[in-house]
């Protein structure tokens, strides 16, 4: 299978330090009952880090700990670093309690980005499950601010219920973009829901894009990514044009703590964005 695609762009900026830097919360937005977005800027006139879509930071809640959180804002918005966070445990709950003006520690950016440079001129299919839309958002925003550089845009987003859909208003505004298709689905609908019901992979055969030229970027639970790859293969989109993100417990984010190993890969350093064919061997086994 010949392809013009490399692994994710190795030239993305990467932090090297274990020492966090202080960042101030400049705004906070409640997305859903358990998910919120915070925008951060360097405290005390510190230097703002640039990043590439798909990269993540380690956010430190004072005395509680660090969590890996993807950057969900636009890479072209130089003023702030935006993070969308689901409250699931100790650190994310501590981050949830931060009001504007509070300070957090930040290390980053880390990890491999989405292959934005290499996909110009292509149809792009973004497939997101739940909070998986957050790491895809910087890529989507970049596409819409350079709309002419890309082909048709398809965004397929799934959530557990209508109340769990993040970036709800924005998804609707993207529906208005030229040559763009946004399809939403939930596992459990309510009376007001007028989009799809079912797992997000069922949207793939219905979406209109050219598998011969499209590139897919997928972020969500592992099981959803496995089935997305199967569906894409079925409609003729080869593996080497599917990019997925992997998630594992991580402590250091610089390939030294060992936690995020997935076969030979350190997800923090070699990922989290991987070309699907590169990890398929390990992806096909359980409990790797």
């Amino acid at each position: 299978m010949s392809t013009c695609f490399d692994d994710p762009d190795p030239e993305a900026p990467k932090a090297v330090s274990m020492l966090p830097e202080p960042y101030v919360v400049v705004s906070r937005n409640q997305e859903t009952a358990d998910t919120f977005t915070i925008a951060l800027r360097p405290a005390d006139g510190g230097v703002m880090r640039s990043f590439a879509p798909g990269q993540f930071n380690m956010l430190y809640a004072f005395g509680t700990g660090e969590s890996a959180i993807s950057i969900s804002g636009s890479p072209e918005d130089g003023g702030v670093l935006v993070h969308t966070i689901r409250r699931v445990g100790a650190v994310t709950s501590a981050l949830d309690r931060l009001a504007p003006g509070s300070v957090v520690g930040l290390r980053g950016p880390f990890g491999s980005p989405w292959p934005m440079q290499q996909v110009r001129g292509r149809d792009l299919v973004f497939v997101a499950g739940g909070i998986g839309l957050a790491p895809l958002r910087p890529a989507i925003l970049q596409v819409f601010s350079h709309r002419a550089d890309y082909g048709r845009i398809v965004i397929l987003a799934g959530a557990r219920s209508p109340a769990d859909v993040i970036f709800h208003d924005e998804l609707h505004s993207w529906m208005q973009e030229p040559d763009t298709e946004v399809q939403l689905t939930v596992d459990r609908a309510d009376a007001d829901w007028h989009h799809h019901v079912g797992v997000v992979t069922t949207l793939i055969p219905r979406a209109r894009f050219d598998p011969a030229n499209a590139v897919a970027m997928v972020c969500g639970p592992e099981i959803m990514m496995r089935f997305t790859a199967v569906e894409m293969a079925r409609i003729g989109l080869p593996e080497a044009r599917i990019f997925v993100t992997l998630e594992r417990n991580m402590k250091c984010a610089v390939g030294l703590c060992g936690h995020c190993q997935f076969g030979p890969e350190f997800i923090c350093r070699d990922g989290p964005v991987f070309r699907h064919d590169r990890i398929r061997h390990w992806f096909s086994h359980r409990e790797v």
Partner: protein
Amino acid sequence: MTTEPPVLLLREHFDTLLEALARRGYKVVGPTVSEGTIVYDEVSRAEDLPVGWTDEQEGGRYRLKRRDDAALFGYAVGAQSWKQYLHPPRLRLVKADRDASGRMSFSDGDDAEPERYAFLGVRSCELHAMTIQDRVFLGSGVADTHYERRRKRVFSIGVSCGVAGGTCFCVSMGTGPQVTDRTPHDLALTEVIEEERHYFILTAGSDEGREVLAGLPVTPAGETEVSAAKQRVDQTAATMGRRMNAEGVRELLLENLEHPRWDDVAQRCLTCANCTLVCPTCFCTTVEDVADLTGDHAERWRRWDSCFTLDFTWMHGGSARQSGKSRYRQWLTHKLSTWHDQFGSSGCVGCGRCITWCPVGIDLTQEIAAFRDHPITPSPSQP
């Protein structure tokens, strides 16, 4: 091998080496006997070493016993490895402070000057393990500055082994028992005990090693003495307690990720993590965050962790490696297979510690033999 001619140091002059190192400002640490095992500790005289002791090692079994001579290095490795000095079991990574206005500042928690250690009696497998950890911490991206600071201060005195432990298989892994220039060291020695004489054949592996040698009461080593030393090491190589066919083991494991043998070993494994703690190359760590009572001073500590714990892969929703089987598989495939992809060598140096200190005697050389004897053909992968 070192180009300079080897020299001879008599046993009665051995303390001059320790004194020379102390004069240079090193704290000399080496093997000592404590509570029935060999542990690394400070040594200031030859008598502090395990004089006249040797060990019996088998799967899940370790015992010291008396030799019929007064050898200083007549045993194999104990449970500890030098990684405890270079990659400390607990280390304060970060200090964080917060003032009344909520401003936060961070500083390096590892702010004390590290000790300058001279490691006395580093076996060839251990020198290889240190070289492997050098690649892990310094050679593959972001450098671990804590390791780097400690490592570059170390003076290492290698020892070519005069006896093979019951669980040793360095010959299979190409990591011993002779100390060679393939691994950096400052001095290397081989112990020889003859009817009339007890001496050491020494070579220098670095400029500082040469300087140290130049100040010792050594004499040029004769051909017979050098060959007596070589013969002892050859004898060690010929009597390895274990062997493992390491050829193609990277691929062997990759192709056998679903082999029934993993279920078999999982039934025996207690997931106690001993093997990872004693292994001289295992490097995984976790972090702990603590805050004081005022809530304005916090610290982030790093400590050794193990892929055998359930927490190791904890994510919201559950651990990625739930079963003991998947955790043993992760450990063994990392050591012998994916380590090659990550760091360009095996992660195993054949020291045998994981066999000796496994409470149920799980022996990776036997596990590999089992995969070799009954390989399963790889099936095309499924989503």
